[in-house]
């Protein structure tokens, strides 16, 4: 009896692994060739599922047979492939030269656009797909009933792996894909039509995403919220397997599938964390993933900025004046918005410091904003600390967390580093979300009140400005101090910096801790302004917002983070009340910005 159970559980895990592999294979191929981490890959899978639930019922009504089902799945995947080609030609083609991070951001813009698009086309209700004819029953195996469709899926994974391997080994297209994965510039130098190659690979990736989504339809309904969970798991699988490696993705998918099937028996409450913990562990042991190659050194990933002019006294006076004007002249609502803009500006500035100077692309910076906010809120509400002490505890806690993460990340670089920051942020988020006893779960902690002297919005805005503006300016000072100069030296040439005897790893950890602590200060200020904290503060969208602010303001511009925070927060504030389609507008705005102003608003201003 028990044996049957273990076998059934393993088969469930393998069926899940096949589905995971299909989406992850597309992601890893696209990354290997185009070097674009496509956040919208999960959205493409979602479209595949929606197309499948649309085309399958009429097809099956006409002839309820398995070949008809497979035809419908294939049609869905082809529709998504065509859509992928269009997306590549219209958008991605224009941003291959933009820094990686902003590509990631642009694809996140796409995620937002697709979310609203799907909602408009298919409506808000979940749509359950038909079961596959002939595969809807359970197959008795050792006294357990295993869904026949699971067995079918288990077969599909290796078949697709085999076909992909054949394609990559035997065809000229595959040869070019492999060559481009190894050395993109060399392939270009040999006169290969890169535009066509990239479009083809992206369409193939989209096809696999669509296939993965369409094949899931008999198991899970098409729903508007399925994109982010799919992409999060596909990221994990891709990173564990080694980015760009298709067999690696398969291996990792099997690992994750089995981990989930058996992990829930031992740890029913922490499956979310478990997956990311495994990812973090694998990356720390093998930074390039199971079957990945070490990344080629990034060529001009972010243009070096040699001298950073300190913020001019005039600009500083202008900012102070603007805040005083808002504080005195406007209403409580604008004061609150201004306080939030300051907080976000500090968080964005600390992120910009990491990206532009330490070369650390953090995709989970909201973890530190959230850690600061949670520390302050927990101490103020649960332990009864006064506001002043709790405000100080925010940066200390976030700095300590950043120190911990930084130590784990110090020897990594590039896209794996970015993915690992994402994994750490997800672990932090999962802890806040699922550890209900301490953090209050998704309800968070409410009743975080400022001290009586700072209780009104005017005083609190002034307090926030008094804490945050000096912090931003101090960060600027660090850039021109020896520490900042040496950081940039290590960023531009790690071997030379090491040869000079610089403690590169320790410097990076210190930079990480500093940036984390400052974001944590912002979080603590945020907590008392909002009055409550909750896990959305440290979720992926919040990290994306911070990156979007940097993008808007420009990483290289002095006033960048401030301009970006004001622009994005202001935009949300104006657009959200106007329309249900604000995600669409926000997504389009992000896409336009990346395509039109890769240097950001403030950057564009400086150039003109």
């Amino acid at each position: 009896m028990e044996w049957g159970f273990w076998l059934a559980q393993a088969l469930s895990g393998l069926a899940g692994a096949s589905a995971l592999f299909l989406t992850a294979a597309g992601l890893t191929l696209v990354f290997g060739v185009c070097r674009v981490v496509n956040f919208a890959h999960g959205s493409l899978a979602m479209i595949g599922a929606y197309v499948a639930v649309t085309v399958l019922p009429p097809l099956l009504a006409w002839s309820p047979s398995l070949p008809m089902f497979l035809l419908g799945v294939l049609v869905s995947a082809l529709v998504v492939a065509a859509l992928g080609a269009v997306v590549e030609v219209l958008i991605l083609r224009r941003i291959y030269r933009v820094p990686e991070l902003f590509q990631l951001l642009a694809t996140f813009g796409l995620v937002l656009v697709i979310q609203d698009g799907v909602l408009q086309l298919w409506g808000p209700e979940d749509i359950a797909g038909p079961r596959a004819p002939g595969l809807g029953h359970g197959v008795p195996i050792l006294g357990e009933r295993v869904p026949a469709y699971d067995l079918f899926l288990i077969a599909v994974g290796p078949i697709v792996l085999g076909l992909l391997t054949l394609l990559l080994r035997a065809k000229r297209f595959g040869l070019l894909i492999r060559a481009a994965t190894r050395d993109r510039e060399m392939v270009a130098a040999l006169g290969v039509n890169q535009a066509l190659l990239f479009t083809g690979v992206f369409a193939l990736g989209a096809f696999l995403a669509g296939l993965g989504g369409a094949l899931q339809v008999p198991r899970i309904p098409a729903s508007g919220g399925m994109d982010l969970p799919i992409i999060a798991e596909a990221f994990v699988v891709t990173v564990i397997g080694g980015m760009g490696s298709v067999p690696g993705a398969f291996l990792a998918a099997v690992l994750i599938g089995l981990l989930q099937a058996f992990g829930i028996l031992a740890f029913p409450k922490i499956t979310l964390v478990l997956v990311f913990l495994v990812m973090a562990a694998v990356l720390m042991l093998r930074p390039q993933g199971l079957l990945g190659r070490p990344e080629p050194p990034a060529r001009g990933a972010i243009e070096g900025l040699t001298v950073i002019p300190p913020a001019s006294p005039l600009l500083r006076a202008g900012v102070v004046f603007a805040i005083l004007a808002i504080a005195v002249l406007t209403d409580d609502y604008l004061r609150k918005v201004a306080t939030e803009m300051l907080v976000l500006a500090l968080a964005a500035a600390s992120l910009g410091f990491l990206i532009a100077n330490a070369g650390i692309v953090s995709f989970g910076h909201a973890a530190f904003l959230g850690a600061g906010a949670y520390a302050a809120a927990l101490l103020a509400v649960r332990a009864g600390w006064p506001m002043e002490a709790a405000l100080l505890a925010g940066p200390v806690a976030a700095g300590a967390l950043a120190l911990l993460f930084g130590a784990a990340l110090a020897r990594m670089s590039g896209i794996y580093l970015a993915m690992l920051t994402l994994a750490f942020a997800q672990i932090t988020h999962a802890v806040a979300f699922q550890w209900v006893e301490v953090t209050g779960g998704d309800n968070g902690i409410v009743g975080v009140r400022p001290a009586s002297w700072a209780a009104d919005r005017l005083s609190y805005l002034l307090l926030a400005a008094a804490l945050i503006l000096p912090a931003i300016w101090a960060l600027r000072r660090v850039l021109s101090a020896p520490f900042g100069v040496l950081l940039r030296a290590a960023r531009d040439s790690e071997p030379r910096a090491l040869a000079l005897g610089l403690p590169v790893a320790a410097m990076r950890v210190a930079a990480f801790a500093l940036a984390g602590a400052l974001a944590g200060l912002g979080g603590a200020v945020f907590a008392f302004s909002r009055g409550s904290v909750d896990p959305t503060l440290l979720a992926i969208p919040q990290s994306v917002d911070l990156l979007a602010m940097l993008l808007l303001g420009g990483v290289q511009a002095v006033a960048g983070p401030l301009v970006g925070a004001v622009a994005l927060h202001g935009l949300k504030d104006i657009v959200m009340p106007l329309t249900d389609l604000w995600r669409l507008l926000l997504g389009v705005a992000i896409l336009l910005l990346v395509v039109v102003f890769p240097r950001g608003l403030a950057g564009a201003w400086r150039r003109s």
Partner: protein
Amino acid sequence: MTRLRLPRRATLLALPALALRPASAQPARGEPVRIGELNSYARMAAFAVPYRNAMQMAQDEINAAGGVLGGRPIEFLFRDDGAAPSDAARVAEDLLTRENVAFIAGTFLSNVGLAVADLAARRQRLFLATEPLSDALTMHQGNPYTFRVRPGTFMQTRMLVEAVRGRPVRRWAIVAPNYEYGQSAAAAFKRLIVEAIPGAEIVAEQYPALGRPDAGPTVGALSRARPEGVFNVLFGADLIPFVREGQIRGLFEGRTVLSLLTGEPEYLLPLGAEAPTGWIVTGYPAEQITTPAAHRAFFDAYRARFNDTPRLGSLLGYVTVQMVKAMLDRAGSTDTEAMIAALRGLTTDTIAGPVTMRALDQQSTLGAWVGETAVEGGRSVMRNWRYEDGARHMFPEAEVRAARRL
């Protein structure tokens, strides 16, 4: 900064309602009573759009019949809360500060509701939470400015447990989404089932992550414990995979299944012809309800106007506006303290029957329909249902006093 105004569908759609108004009543005139309604219209559109539809319908009917406070019309300002606490708190602040609303209402997600409730307490303004289910809202994180319309997690769990009181089903398995709602429903179930069924025990618990159910392994783990009954809290996109896997693997065969919210049209309709039969669920069998008669009128009017069946959101939106009117009639003004005083203990004749806002925890006695799932004519429906008055399932008074430190 000037703020653009959304052209309100409400004003356009008001015309047919005006045409239908009784000849005797004068339509409302004068300064409108503005009410800020924030909800997740984009993220939770399946619930929130029917909810907004019904609110607009109720608003138009009230205005056509003479309005409130001596002939003033009511005007709902619908805003998206972004499905995130920080956005919601900002939108609420905007409504209170700049739009000059009398009070705020709405919210869907519990965390959003709690954040807005906290803001209401801080600003000392009335907040009528309509949908969030968390017990925290009326219990240990309750505040004097926040009232809730829907029956909370504890109340709905209790309705289900009462439905199996005394049955010889002792071994129970729990499956719930891993976040506050799922965990508190599971906690309420554990506490209530041992009172209702002597000797009941929990033999398996599974908490899949919200939005990514591993249905196969989850069902496998539950079956392994050989339970006699299953308490399910999964809903929405997590429910369908659980149902399919459970049916294929025989998890539900010969077992009693209690399932929260599954009977709500928002979750029942997507199941199509696949609803598991005989599950005991809470929900809303809209098209079958004949009493009170006003519900039938509401049902017909809603269908006529929106060419769609009302969802649970529609019922809630309509009941909420009915309660708002009764509150304003009793308060006689839009002064916050007067409205709060009026709302405490207020009984309203709604389309779901009389509903009282219990003063102690500021929780309404709006109930839910408890029945069994069935498939008829290719659609999932509720059968053998009855309306469970919320008044019978609320938290004991002593417990409320302890939690709210009264």
